[in-house]
């Protein structure tokens, strides 16, 4: 693509950058793996523990239905938590990094 104008390697060694990268990786992959695990729990439990799904919780509404419902809630929660962390933490760190790089004249 474009511009070899920046010294990417030196930016990649910037402590602020490393902090951002570390935080992002830990957050993104742990939430991804966690939510994926929860998602697969649905097929696994419904197949191998069907009696669990039959337990009635609210009137005729059983555990299975509520568990499926919780999957949708999980999607919303992941989206909200990620938005919050990204807006507050990642964006702030990125801004700080870009500002300090501009000060140094690296970009």
């Amino acid at each position, binding site marked *: 693509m474009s*511009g070899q104008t920046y010294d*990417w*390697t030196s930016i990649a060694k910037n402590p602020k*950058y490393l902090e951002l990268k570390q935080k992002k990786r830990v957050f993104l992959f742990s939430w991804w793996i966690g939510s994926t695990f929860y998602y697969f729990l649905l097929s696994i439990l419904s*197949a191998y523990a*069907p009696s669990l799904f039959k337990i009635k919780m609210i009137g005729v509404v059983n555990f299975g239905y509520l568990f499926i419902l919780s999957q949708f809630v999980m999607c*919303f929660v992941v989206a909200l938590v990620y938005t919050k962390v990204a807006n507050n933490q990642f964006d702030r760190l990125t801004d700080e*990094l870009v500002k300090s790089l501009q000060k140094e004249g690296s*970009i």
Partner: protein
Amino acid sequence: MIVRFFFVSLFMVLCYTNTLGAEPVKPVVAGTPNAAVQATSVIAPLAQPVAATVAKPLEIQKTAAPAPNKVKPNRGITIGMFGVIIGITLCVVVWAAKKTTTAADFYAAGGGITGLQNGWAIAGDYMSAASFLGMSGLISLYGIDGFMYAVGPAFSFIAILLLIAEPCRNAGKFTLGDILSFRTSAKPVRAVAAVSTVTVSLFYLIAQMVGAGKLMQVLLDIPYKVSVIGVGILMVGYVVFGGMKATTWVQIIKAGLLMSGTVLLAFLVMVKAGFNPVTLFSDVVKSPQIQDHIRINLLKDAIPKEGFDYGQRFLEPGLFLKNPLDQISLGVAWALGAAGLPHILMRFFTVPSAKEARKSIVIALFINSSFFFLINLIGFGAALYLTPQLISSVDKGGNMATLLLAQLLGGGAGSLGGDIFLAFICAVAFATILAVVSGLVLAASAAIAHDVYVNIIMDGKADQHTQVKVAKITSLVVGVSAIVMGLMAEKENVVAFVALAFAVAASGNFPVLILSLFWRRFNTAGVLSGLLVGTITTLGLVMVSPVMTYPQQIANDAKKIITALETKQSGGAVLDAKELKILEKAQADFNKNDGGTSMMGLKAPLFPLKNPGLVSAPIGFIAAILGALLFREKRAEDMFDEIEVRQITGIEITRASDH
């Protein structure tokens, strides 16, 4: 070269399937599915365990027997509403055409779409008519299994949200090939990425076209050919003249209509249930028709079992999804596949920044999840207020449940309210199809025009005017090919195509995309081996999987029915007219299919899973990693810092998109 070879072979495969494909099951919305690797062929076969028989016509006939009903929309009102949608979208095209002058305009709407707009457009690109019609039908016939099925498409956005959306916005430009070729040998990587994009998009597109043709055929009572050509012309028109801008707005309008229709239907169901979901479910469980449907049609208990709550069984899993591994494998395709779909990926290049990309996927996720959640109220509402017997008598797969429910909630068949609401929901389904196919045409033509023509053939040296011209010609060619293939594939089992598209995306595109963005050692060899091995493995496994048609199995099933009825006959019983008809049909099926083999010359599937994701995705990952490790490449490793800094921080993104 590779691309041409691909087209030729695809064409040959299609011709071949056309001559040999004996298709026992013709789901109405077949293929329209985003989803519906299974949902579509709901029609019975899937109620069986995978390796078991393909269809059990006897039972289906029982449910479907009395006077085959039809959905009869009021033609005048329906055509009027279709006309309004066509009119509005054409105005959008005219407006967008004026603003489309550069390649960036054509492929990415100049990066000028806001996060909010893009969120609606992504949802519009993703939610298909099959989800709208097929999934509620599935719930209305099989209960909670259908709802469980809806979790996959809702969850599939999580990987996009966390791993794909922002990094791709920061590191890419127009296509998958842009990201994959960032630090690798551009030409071979772009070529293979283009082949993979075209494969995924085209298979998905053909399935959508066939589904659209069949749906319009039923709704408007027009011939299949006319409906495919009609949908095709509109689709080509949107893309060729309006590019990404028009496509985006068609998708936004569609998503708005689809959500209005869905919310309205769910709301009316809740009004009927007195706004108490527990009441709704209690009524479902108590419904004698639903109890009978489960006992007779699904569980095949001729005499009720003492003390067994057949109604409650509707809320317990296992009526439709029977093979756990199949479910898990399909889950892999959802969890990874959506994140590798080129037409979804492409939408992230239309927004100006990673922050907007984040906003758009969050909005899309909310719309998408709400949609798939509301579908469950519609499905259970349909089961309660229409009865599964009526739904399956109109369409064996339940694909007409949403439409029938709209008619009922609007005031019933023949009433003005019923006609209007039904026509509106038909129009929503129509808009849905248009939006999805347009996005696919755009993605496929971007891969050919941008990756193959501009970057491989012209070495990236083409002026804006030429780029736009080539992009338009390519879109036209892709669109026309899709129409032709849609016409040829009328009798095909398009369910296999959808399975294929998702599985290729999960096993080919997703692994190499993730590794390109996050793994330093990844390189040209890794991309090539990952994409090729992932795609070919998937293709191979689908070809020998149970989603293909196996005439011998149909013959075997027919044989069973014949034997059963003949035994009854020889026992002295006299068959009634219905049974005689079934016997006659079974005889015909047997004679037609006995000794036949599938496209691959098989009598029975070699691979047990309907979706190969569970096997092919790990193979794709392993191939990509091994390829990269075997052929180390210093340049790719050196350039990792650049792609990583870009994808994490978004530095120089504006310059990258000007380029």
